[in-house]
């Protein structure tokens, strides 16, 4: 198994669960002979894997953290691969009356004002990060929970921001997208989700969820994915050459075409970001 | 109605092997019965049935006039069991204190605390274990365990007490105590008692009536004088317990190979003095033991092997036998039996 062209990649669950990798990786192997061992986990954990040098490349969606990752020298370069978008989902009854609203921020504000049940992923994922930013933009009174973590002898603060009403109309569930959707559906609540997972749960199952897209299309809802090879200067053992080749293939016309051509249940999920 | 038990066609088998088969047996209320028989004869098996702890393979038990229903899962036999207590051959103690072991049965019968304490104190005194009340019951010595088991049963004042070898492992002093206890509760409380024993001498005075089991069946032999017996080189002679030569009486053919012979201790004639020539059915030896057993005298004659016979008081007085006296025993064909 001493194949030079095998790399390990940590990625977020969404790339794997959406089925994209199932078409992307075979195409990759056909073109370049590269085999990728995929380890799917939460965004935070995936980035952590990269930091620790356990993988050769990471493929995640948390732009700010990715940039920090490169800045701190753990990765060589962030390749902007693709994006999909977030949508605001809610029950058909739509108690907050946000259906058709183009802009996300007022829609969220309306949910808050009507005290309609909202499920937050609350797991510090890309989706959660986006949600927090949107809530901040509503101008509502926000609450911040801060917990202190001791790390390497230094205290570090981790904070969470959420609108007032936690535990009443705002539930933080701390789970992956799929489970959050299930919960929202079960409770007939509003939530913020990525389109891929939503489509899967809406059209890809024997028992589809009832939630509907109530607000979409706001540029603020874009969800960019990046791929970063791990810096061999930090972790000399990583298979940097192959990782770089992999990243470059992804942003090549061929890779981008595969991404743009991927259809889930007849719908496009990911939009290539590197197309010229 | 004075019948405590009436057993009919009672059979118990383990894995297809019939270990007990009693055609008919009636045990009367308020008496003491001794049950004898060799190892594996089925004594413990019978006790388990009489105590309603096992279900017979077939047959019926009538207890106190009531037919005992054949146990089905969930059937409640407590009604019967509460009247009969069995003391095991190797009694098992719960891993608590001596006190609590006895308390168990009393608690179950709803005896109040002061009553319990009083009863426990009393029965412990009966078996001379008062100082052990707070000791761990499962760490007692062999004989202490045996006595505790009896005390645990006595505390419950049962109508029927089944004692499987109550004096095995018990010291001489306490053997007498236990025998005394058994006859006392029989007398005072009218308790029906069955006990097994291998010690005829100890048990002799105690039982009103005795039974003998052999290979699961009631037999009329007294179970004394059973010897292993192998053929000697000569014709018509066998070796009792590989030691004593015995000329078989006329008309008595030995089965092939090793077998067991029974010399009936009541069907013989006894003469003083040795007989010089070996003759059929004749054994001689010297008297080694004389023991009063009710109205008769047990005489053990050392003929190489120990042979027991019984004499009536009158016969004994006539012969005036002493320990060490040489005697001749003469068994006829009807006194010899093959098992």
């Amino acid at each position: 198994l001493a194949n030079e062209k095998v790399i390990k990649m940590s990625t977020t669950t969404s790339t794997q669960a959406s089925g994209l990798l199932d078409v992307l990786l075979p195409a990759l192997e056909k073109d370049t002979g590269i085999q990728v061992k995929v380890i799917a986990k939460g965004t935070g954990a995936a980035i952590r894997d990269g930091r620790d040098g356990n993988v050769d490349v990471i493929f995640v969606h948390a732009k700010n953290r990715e940039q920090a990752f490169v800045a701190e020298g753990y990765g060589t370069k962030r390749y902007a691969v693709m994006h999909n978008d977030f949508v605001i989902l809610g029950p058909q009854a739509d108690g907050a009356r946000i259906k058709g609203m183009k802009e996300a921020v007022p829609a969220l504000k309306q949910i808050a004002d009507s005290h309609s049940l909202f499920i937050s992923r609350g797991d510090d994922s890309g989706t959660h990060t986006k949600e927090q930013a949107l809530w901040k933009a509503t101008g509502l009174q926000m609450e911040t929970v801060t917990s202190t973590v001791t790390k390497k002898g230094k205290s570090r603060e981790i904070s969470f921001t959420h609108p007032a009403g936690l535990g009443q109309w705002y539930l933080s569930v701390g789970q992956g997208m799929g489970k959050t959707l299930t919960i929202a559906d079960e409770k007939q609540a509003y939530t913020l989700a990525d389109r891929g997972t939503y489509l899967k749960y809406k059209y890809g199952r024997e028992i589809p969820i009832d939630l509907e897209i109530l607000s979409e299309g706001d540029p603020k809802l874009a969800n960019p994915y990046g791929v970063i090879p791990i810096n061999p200067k930090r972790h000399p053992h990583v298979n940097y050459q192959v990782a770089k080749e992999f990243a470059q293939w992804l942003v090549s016309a061929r890779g981008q075409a595969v991404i743009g051509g991927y259809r889930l249940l007849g719908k496009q999920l990911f939009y290539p970001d590197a197309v010229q | 109605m004075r019948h405590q038990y009436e057993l009919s066609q009672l059979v118990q088998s383990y894995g297809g092997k019939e270990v007990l088969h009693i055609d008919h047996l009636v045990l009367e209320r308020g008496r003491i019965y001794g049950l004898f028989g060799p190892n594996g004869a089925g004594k413990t098996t019978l006790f388990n049935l009489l105590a309603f702890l096992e279900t017979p393979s077939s047959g019926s038990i009538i207890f106190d006039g009531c037919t005992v229903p054949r146990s089905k899962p969930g059937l409640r036999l407590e009604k019967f069991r509460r009247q009969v207590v069995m003391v095991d051959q190797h009694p098992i103690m719960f891993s608590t204190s001596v006190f609590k072991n006895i308390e168990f049965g009393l608690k179950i019968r709803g005896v109040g605390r002061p009553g319990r304490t009083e009863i426990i104190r009393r029965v412990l005194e009966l078996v001379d274990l008062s100082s052990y009340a707070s000791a761990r019951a499962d760490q007692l010595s062999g004989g202490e365990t045996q006595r505790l088991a009896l005390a645990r049963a006595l505390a419950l004042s049962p109508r029927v007490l089944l004692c499987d070898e109550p004096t095995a492992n018990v010291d001489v002093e306490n053997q007498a105590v236990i025998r005394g206890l058994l006859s006392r509760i029989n007398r005072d409380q009218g308790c029906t008692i069955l006990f097994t024993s291998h010690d005829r001498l100890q048990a002799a005075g105690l039982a009103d009536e005795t039974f003998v089991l052999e290979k699961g069946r009631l037999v009329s032999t007294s179970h004394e004088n059973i010897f292993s017996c192998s053929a000697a080189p000569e014709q018509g002679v066998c070796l009792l317990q590989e030691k004593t030569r015995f000329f078989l009486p006329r008309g008595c053919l030995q089965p092939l190979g090793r077998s067991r012979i029974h010399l009936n201790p009541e069907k013989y004639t006894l003469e003083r003095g040795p007989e010089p020539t070996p003759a059929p059915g004749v054994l001689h030896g010297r008297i080694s033991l004389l023991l009063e057993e009710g109205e008769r005298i047990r005489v053990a004659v050392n003929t190489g092997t120990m042979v027991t016979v019984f004499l009536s008081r009158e016969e004994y007085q006539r012969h005036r036998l002493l320990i060490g006296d040489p005697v001749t025993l003469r068994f006829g064909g009807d006194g010899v039996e093959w098992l």
Partner: protein
Amino acid sequence: MNFFTASFSSAIQLVFSLDPELLTVVKVSLRVSCLSTLLASVLGIPLGFFIAHGHLPAKRLIITLLNSLLALPTVVIGLFVYGFISRRGLFGSLDLLYTQNAIIIGQVILITPLVTALIVAAISRIDERYAKTARTLGATSLQTAVVIFREARFGICAAVISAFGRVISEIGISMMLGGNIKGFTRTMTTAMALEYDKGSFTLAIALGLVLMTISLAMNVLFNLVQGRGRL
């Protein structure tokens, strides 16, 4: 590596800060685990007794089936229960999903086979003569069972403790049926999983250490209740 020491000091800090959030999480964990252990014991102990002592014709087969059930994965149990208590399920109207009770239901299904199998093992070994002695002393079936339990108490405690250990450290069911809702159904383990997913390993391990401390405390308590005597 050095996150062990870091975790350790975080754990201590967490405990001494008496963070109300932490307290809630601990409370939920303990409540759910204790209740499901209790329920599973109430179900599994008599069942195990019945299997070990009842004269069942297919005893061996039943035990084999029971043992196979020990491999029931939490995902399957989660989905199974979900099927029943989800809005569209048979018991949807009870509004059980994403409550502590839902976790308890799932966990009871998870550990009842474990409790039962271990009880069967613990009781099978008890000499039949204990039951016989109890019966001849006049015990009813129930009282006989009590005697056997007392003799088997160490094995039974081991069964219950294993079950408790299993549920308090369990994640899958708590996550799927509880939903890890902050303040309601977030348990120590789901909180830990969340921290892990966020990449904050230190906090995850710190929570783990807190959990272990609580488990130790529970065991010490249990040991005291169990009393002295032969193990």
